């Protein structure tokens, strides 16, 4: 048998396989170069980038929970300019699409960061993280209010000619409403889910474990919620979808594809196993071989309900 066709495309971004690395869990790529072949994965997504460098939250920033972990990194990043100067040159030499994840503290910042990335060689697309509080509007989170999300996405769309992926928050009553709002505003693809908001408590100290009090829950614990949301959105919206949440194995990734995802992102798994993204792509291919499936694309949305 021929090797199965693992390639997929998301809004024009061609990938050798559906496995991308999730924002904030793969640094700026170079950190993992010793552990896997960066040219074996589908695409890399950068740490969330903002207009100015961001310090992030005080520590502790992470804590393990049952089957998951909480993080409150606070979107620490080098800022868009340092990214372009210091991180991008390395990534340009890697033959794998790089997608810049970006966010803003205000609506305007979103537009600004997007326009700085526009036309930049070496950036195949952008992923907009709308799970951030809007500093100007008293902290209401862009990603939980359909009209705020729509505003952000429309503005970014105006400022970029690159494929535009919008990353959805799971902390909403109806993810489909959010997905539709982003689709209407011009998103080319949707990625979901970001982390669920959670909290851990240190009983002895009677204090929250995280300095930030709450944090984002990721890892295998959230996979059922992520699968459900991917399935809901895939039914309702015709954009390509990137599934994220607790993917640890090739089988997990393929489940997300059945639910309607064209590609997946691997986050927390890279902490447990720095070669996870490569391993997962290999496991997916092995599954296809064993089941005599010619193209991974034939699985997208193939769930029978």
């Amino acid at each position, binding site marked *: 048998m021929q090797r199965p066709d693992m390639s997929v495309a998301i809004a024009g971004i061609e990938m050798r396989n559906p496995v991308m690395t999730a924002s904030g869990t793969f640094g700026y790529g170079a950190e993992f170069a*010793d552990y896997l072949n960066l040219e074996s994965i589908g695409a890399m997504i950068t740490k969330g980038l903002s207009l100015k460098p961001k310090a992030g939250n005080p*520590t502790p920033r*992470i804590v393990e929970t049952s089957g998951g972990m909480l993080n409150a990194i606070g979107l620490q990043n080098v800022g868009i300019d340092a990214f372009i100067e210091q991180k991008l040159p390395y990534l340009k030499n890697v033959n794998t699409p790089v997608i810049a994840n970006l966010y803003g503290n205000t609506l305007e910042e979103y537009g600004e960061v997007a326009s700085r990335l526009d036309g930049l060689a070496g950036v195949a697309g952008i992923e907009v993280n709308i799970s951030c509080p809007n500093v100007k509007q008293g902290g209401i989170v862009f990603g939980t209010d359909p009209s705020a999300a729509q505003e952000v996405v429309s503005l970014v769309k105006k400022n970029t000619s690159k494929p535009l992926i919008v990353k959805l928050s799971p902390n909403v009553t109806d993810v489909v409403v959010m997905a539709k709002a982003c689709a209407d505003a011009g998103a080319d693809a949707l990625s979901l889910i970001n982390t669920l908001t959670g909290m851990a408590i240190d009983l002895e100290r009677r204090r929250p474990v995280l300095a930030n009090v709450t944090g984002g829950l990721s890892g295998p614990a959230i996979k059922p919620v992520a699968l459900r949301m991917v399935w809901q959105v895939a039914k309702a919206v015709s954009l390509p979808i990137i599934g994220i949440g607790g993917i640890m194995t090739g089988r997990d990734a393929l489940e997300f594809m059945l639910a309607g995802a064209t590609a997946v992102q691997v986050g927390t798994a890279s*902490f447990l196993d720095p070669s996870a993204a490569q391993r997962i792509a290999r496991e997916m291919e092995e599954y296809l071989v064993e089941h005599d499936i010619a193209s991974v694309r034939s699985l997208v949305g193939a769930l029978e309900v």
Partner: protein
Amino acid sequence: MQFKAMVLSNVELSPGYFRMKMTAPQELASSAPGQFLMLKVNDAIDPLLRRPFGLFDVGSFLPEYAGCGAQIYCEILYKVVGKGTKLLSALHHGDLVDLLAPLGKGFDLGPAGEEKVLVGGGVGLAPLYYLAKELKNRGEKVRLFAGGRNRDDILCITEFERLGVETYVATDDGTLGERGFVTQVLEPHLAPGTRIFACGPTPMLNAVAKMAQKSGVPCQVSMEAYMACGVGACLGCVMKGANHTEETPDYRCVCKDGPVFDSFELQWS
């Protein structure tokens, strides 16, 4: 690098403290004292994250198989504090664990001829043994100051002495060595021409760093932080750099910029 290591032995040294020896690839022979490893105690998702441990020793041994050449081993010294270390303490000869090693930045051994002063609190002794071995290999004069709550916390002193290290011990309750803090025992020994290498609880490191600054003695500290990735990617393990302020933040990754820092690089409370 990432590799599977086979447990060679896993021995309880004093109540709750274990020393575990594992096979390692050749590459580990060029690790530096102060570097650490990240260990996945099982294949399950509970505990989910790897656990970081300092390299207690790295060396070579001759396996008892006919015709088998010298192999590299690495050792850790650990204290059972929670779920991960409890599971770890149940491992036996022959069990496999998944390791990332060597990670981070080790100690700068400094110029020859100085008096090297090692300060360890409790399980903070762990990286100091490998360090002492390297320093003695270079023929340096090495003193160790070890502290703990009681004598059960004072580990492997004989091993240090066997290397030719001069040892000083202090315990909070006086059950071994002098009664009191190790820093009290240390202070009179600090003088120009000495260099400090310290590892232990943060309050101890804080005291040592201040003492070093006062005496004008160079001082390196090995820090701990809650870690997820161990490779500088998650930004979970950061500490405040010396000039950190709310406005001009300066965070350092313990896993990548450390775990060993010059004491003046960091902000002390």
